[in-house]
Structures are given as C-alpha cells and as structure tokens.
C-alpha cells in the first residue's frame, strides 16, 4: 500500500517509551529474583559480591554514563542541524559500547578462570546461596551485555543514516529512539552496579 508521508513524532516517542517499559519489566523479573534471594542468602551474597571487581564495575559505569552523555548530545546536535557533529558523537557512543563489552569480556574471563560460572564444580560444591548469586550475576550482566550489543548495532545503523542525510533536523525519530534505547541500557546498569558490585 502506498502511504503518503505521514510522520507522527509524538506517536513514535510514545511507542518507543512503551517498548522501553517492556524492557524495564523484562529486567525487573531478574531484579525480583535478586531481591528474593538476597533476603534469603544475605551472607552468601555478601561473600559473592566481594569476589566481583569494583574497579571493573565502576569503570564500566563511567564508560556507560559517558556514552549516554554522547548519545544525548547527538540528539541536541541533530536538532541544531549539525550533521557532522551528530555522526561523531554517535561514533563516540558506539566506541564506548565496544569498550564496555571489552571490559566485560576481561571480567567474565577472569571469573571463569577462577572456576566461577553456572554449573562449575566450585559453585556446585560451595554453599547454595553463592551458586544462586553467580547465576543471577551471569544472567543479569549477560542479558544487559546483549542489550549493549543490540543498542550499539542500532546506533551504528542510525549513524549510517545520518551520514546518508536520511536523518536530519526535520526527521530524527530514529536517532531519538535509538538514543532512548541506549539510555535505558545505561539506566539498567545504574542499578546493576551497586546491587552486584557494591552493596555487600
């Protein structure tokens, strides 16, 4: 069906936010389990939390906050009609996404090297609460990492369209929604960081 150009910017924003709600609640299920098991195994969670490296966690927090800033600035830039700046800022965001995943890789490798992964001998024979803690840790950060990957890919796609001139100051719903998605990824990490790395 040939449709005349019909752009409903507010509608696109509303739709994106509704989708973000579903993402929040998807992670919410894991936070629910975290809350329940923290209440049951405070001591084991404390021991498990101390195994995690605060430097990696804090480093990744800074990386993600910065990427979020760059994404927000990209939206401002496109609104002002600064196409080149938009593309550069988005490139910065994507760079941060890769950096985040790199740090995550190092961190996971170290953990797995210490024989800590779901179903490992150490966790099978250790206290039950620790196995629960690390399973949740891997699932939550894994799912979050997957979202970083998806968000990064989405923003790369957006960057290409900015360079092609298909996204500009009159039509930037894709960029705005991509940035919203990216902020959500940041938002979830804001909770993951203290809950897993710091709290105990």
């Amino acid at each position, binding site marked *: 069906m040939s449709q005349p150009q019909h752009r*409903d910017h507010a509608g696109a924003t509303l739709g994106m936010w509704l989708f973000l709600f579903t993402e929040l609640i998807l992670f919410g299920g894991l936070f629910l389990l975290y809350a329940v098991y923290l209440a049951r195994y405070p001591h084991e969670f404390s021991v498990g939390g101390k195994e995690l490296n605060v430097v990696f966690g804090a480093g990744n927090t800074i990386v993600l906050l910065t990427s979020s800033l760059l994404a927000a600035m990209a939206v401002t830039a496109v609104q002002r009609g600064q196409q080149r700046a938009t593309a550069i800022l988005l490139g910065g965001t994507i760079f941060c996404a890769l950096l985040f995943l790199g740090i995550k890789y190092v961190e996971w490798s170290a953990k797995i090297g210490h024989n800590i992964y779901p179903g490992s001998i150490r966790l099978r024979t250790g206290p*039950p609460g620790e196995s*629960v803690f690390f399973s949740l840790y891997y699932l939550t950060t894994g799912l979050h990492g997957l979202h970083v990957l998806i968000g990064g890919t989405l923003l790369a796609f957006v960057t290409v369209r900015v360079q092609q001139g298909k996204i500009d100051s009159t039509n930037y719903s894709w960029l705005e929604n991509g940035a919203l998605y990216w902020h959500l990824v940041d938002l979830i990490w804001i909770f993951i960081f203290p809950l897993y790395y710091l709290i105990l």
Partner: protein
Amino acid sequence: MSLPDNSRTDISSFWNDTGKTGIAAWIFSTDHKRIGLLYFYSVLGFFLTAVGLGLLLRIELMAPGRTIMGPQTYNALFTVHGVIMIFLFIIPGFPGAFGNLIMPLQIGARDVAFPRLNLFSWWLYMIGAAIILTALFTGSGPPDTGWTFYVPFSSRTGTNVSLAVFGVFIVGFSSILTGVNFVTTIHRLRAEGMTWRRLPLFVWSLYATAWVQILATPILGITLVLVIAERALGTGLFDPGRGGDPLMFQHLFWIYSHPAVYIMILPAMGVISEIIPVFSRKPVFGYKMIAFSSLAIAAAGSLVWGHHMYTSGMSDTAILVFSFLTFVVAIPSAIKVFNWVATLYKGSISLEAPMIFALSFILLFSIGGLTGLILGAAATDIHVHDTQFVVGHFHYTIFGGSGFAFFGAMHYWLPKFYGRKYAEKPALIAWGLMFVGFNITYFSMMVLGMKGMPRRYYDYLPEFAPLNLASTIGSWLLAAGLLLLMVNLFRGLFRGEPFTGNPWGGATLEWSTTTPPPTENFEEEPVVTHGPYDFKGTGIP
C-alpha cells in the same frame, strides 16, 4: 486465499487493492485489514488443530485404561493442546485478528500507528509458531510438561522443552509489539471528535488488553529465558538442591499468566459490549462503568497471580492477600454482566447469530466466573485444586466466554469485510449443538473434579467412568456444531447473500464506511459527532 466473488465493481474495496500480486499482496501487506485477516486465518488454523487434539484427549479418557494412546503420548497431547490454544489461538486471537480488523475503523483511523511493525509482529507470531511446531517433531519428542512448563519437571525432562519455550518467547514478543502498536494508535490516531468518552467499548477493552500485553508479557519472556538457562547452562535458580526455589518459577510464571487470561477475556467482553446494544436497538447501559471496568479488571487482575499457588507451600499471609484480591476482581466483572443485562431490558431484541452467541457468553462466562470464586477462596480451593474442576472452570471462562465471543465476532464482523453473509438458520442450529455439547463436556468435568478426579491424569478409577463417557460424547456434539458453524460461515462469506451498507444497524464508525471497506478505510476523514451507541443521533431506525 481467493477473493470473494464480488460482482460490485463500482466500489473500490481493500480486496481490489493491486499494489502487489498473489500471496505477496497478503504476507507483505501493511494494511491493517489484510494483517487482521492473516491473523484470523492463522489463529483459526491453530484453533482447529488444537480442537482436534482436544477431541483425541477426550477419546482417550472415554474409558479407564488405555483407549487409543499411551501415557507419554497423552502427556504430549495435553501439553500441545494447551500451548497451541493459549499461545497461538486465544492470546493473539482477539487483538491480532479482530483488533486489527476493527479497531482502526472504529476510531476513524486509516491504519494503526506503526503499520510495518504490525506486519512484523504477524511474522514474529508465525516464526514463533513454526518453532513451536518444529519442537513437536524434532529432538527427543514433544514437550510433556503441560502448557505451564512447571519446574523442576520442565528443567529435567528429556523432551524438547527448550525449543518449544523459545517459540513461545518469540510469540510473546509479537504480542508485546501488538500491545505497543495499539496503545499508541488509540492515543494518537483517533478521528476528530472521537473523544475518550465516545470510544467504542471494544476499543476500550483492547486498550486495557494492550496494557496487560505491555506490562505483563516481559515477565513471561524472562521466565522462559530462565527455564532455557536452567536446562542449557545449569544455572540452578529454581533447583532447591543448589539454593534455588521452584516456587519462584511459579510466581514469575503466574505474574504473566494470570493477567494473560485477561488478555483472553477482556476483548471478548468488548465484543459482547458491541453486539448487545446493536441487537437490542438500545444504547448500552452504563457506558462509563463498562469502559472503566475494563481498566479495573486489567489492573486488579495483575495483583492476583498467587491464587494459582494455594497448595504449593506459599506462605499463609500470601494466600490470604491473594484470596482477598481475587474476590476484588469479581466486582468489575459483575459490573459488566449487570450492565449487559440492563441493556437488554426493554430493548427490541433480535435473536440473530451474533446475539445468540453474545447471550450464551453471558451465561457461560457467569458460570465460569462463579466457579472461579470457588477456586479463588483459599479454603474451597484446597478441595478442588488440580482436579478436573479447574479444567471445567477454565474452559467455561475461556471457551464458553472468549471462544463463544470469538464466534459471535466472526458472525458479526466478517460479513463486513467479505460483503457476503452466512445463512441464519444453520448458524442457529450450529450454535444449539455447540451450546448443548459444551455444557455436557465441561459440566461433567466440574462434577468429576468435585468428586476428586485429578487433572492431567492418564487413567482413573472406575467410578469416574460414566461422567467421562458423557463428557466425551458432549465433545462430539460440540465438534459437530463447530464443523457446521465453520462450513456455514465460510460458505456464506464466499457465496452467500450480499451484505452491503449497515444491515445490523450499528452506530459505531466501522458501519459508516462502505462494505467491504476501501483500502483507506474512509472516503474522507470522519468527524465524530455522536456516541458509539447513539442510534437515534446517527439516524439508524
């Protein structure tokens, strides 16, 4: 799918839109009407398949001991029957088929807010369905866990659970996208003058449903991911031996799956709220309360998941709280029933097929709802928990309720899109057969449950035999009626009497455009000046 033989060429209808040809004109179309029909035929296909499986289950239970299949086959069949009926028929059924067909027309829009996303969600649905079907025929046998996928069994059984669960995950994603699309559409694309207080009640019910789809489905998503992780990675989150808690699976599962029954029933209630005023020639009684009760059911229905877990070992405090809240849901449900009955009062009632289905909905849903209170009260639930009583109750609400409303909607709205109509008399005979067969089938189950026959059991004690036989015979009547209904309806849609203009005399916007509607829905953008049930103001006799 062939075009209906429309002799009228003067009106351009969405059937004649020739952007693409052949099957591509359908499976790549972003027209909400075509997507609605795609959904309709897909869900109908799955429905009929699962009906076949249900009939086989009933034949197996006709007599004690082995009748036609072994126990493992039986376990697989009731699992597949449930998975298909729930995830592939009734959850996508109303929003996907009739929501897509009707909602944009009723609010005076040209299409939904995100037409391409709409098409994408149908594709996701079909991909998920294909994965589920693949799971039945590959790996180490079809899943045998029941549609609820309860741990610890689902994390240990050797059958092909992971793939089936992944398919359900994809279908859930499709459901989320439909919800996002509908909420945005209803907020953004209402025609001029279509205020919230003039919104047809079917649209109100879809709005409430879409919110449940958005807010509850992600929990199902994460739960299914956890089951897969449990099986593939050995995360042990639900394994008591490793510190996990199997009850947490039940909590997560029902946080979605209880609201999900409102995804199944709310739009059905919306359909009834459309049909009853039209066939009573009377404005609906208590419009505001019916609209409000849709939202209230969606909200209260999200707080009661624990009533599936009274016998699971959940805390007594939780049992009390969830039991109380369950009774709260009865209030908005009853508000609807009372308002429908009040609409009938002193109406000029015409008993055509859609109305007959709507009226039987009220009766069957009331039985289903009231038996639900027996299950919702913690004390009485202990006696009938996990018995055939639950099976009977569930089929009264979802088959007698949503299913009959679905048939009503088929008779009420499909002629609008085909420009041809079914024959009235066979439709009424079909309804009669189904109604009688339905009650024999499922009332027997409720009595059996009261007497203590557990559900999902392959074999039973001899004293349960007579009622099981009755239930099976009832299922044959039900199937015969269903067959007649389908033959009559589709014969009529393709070859029946012409159906043009507004024969039912509906005052909602879908009846103000030509029949079948044009691709653009309306020749010119409608301006709404009357309420959806203001028959006098709209000039309908």
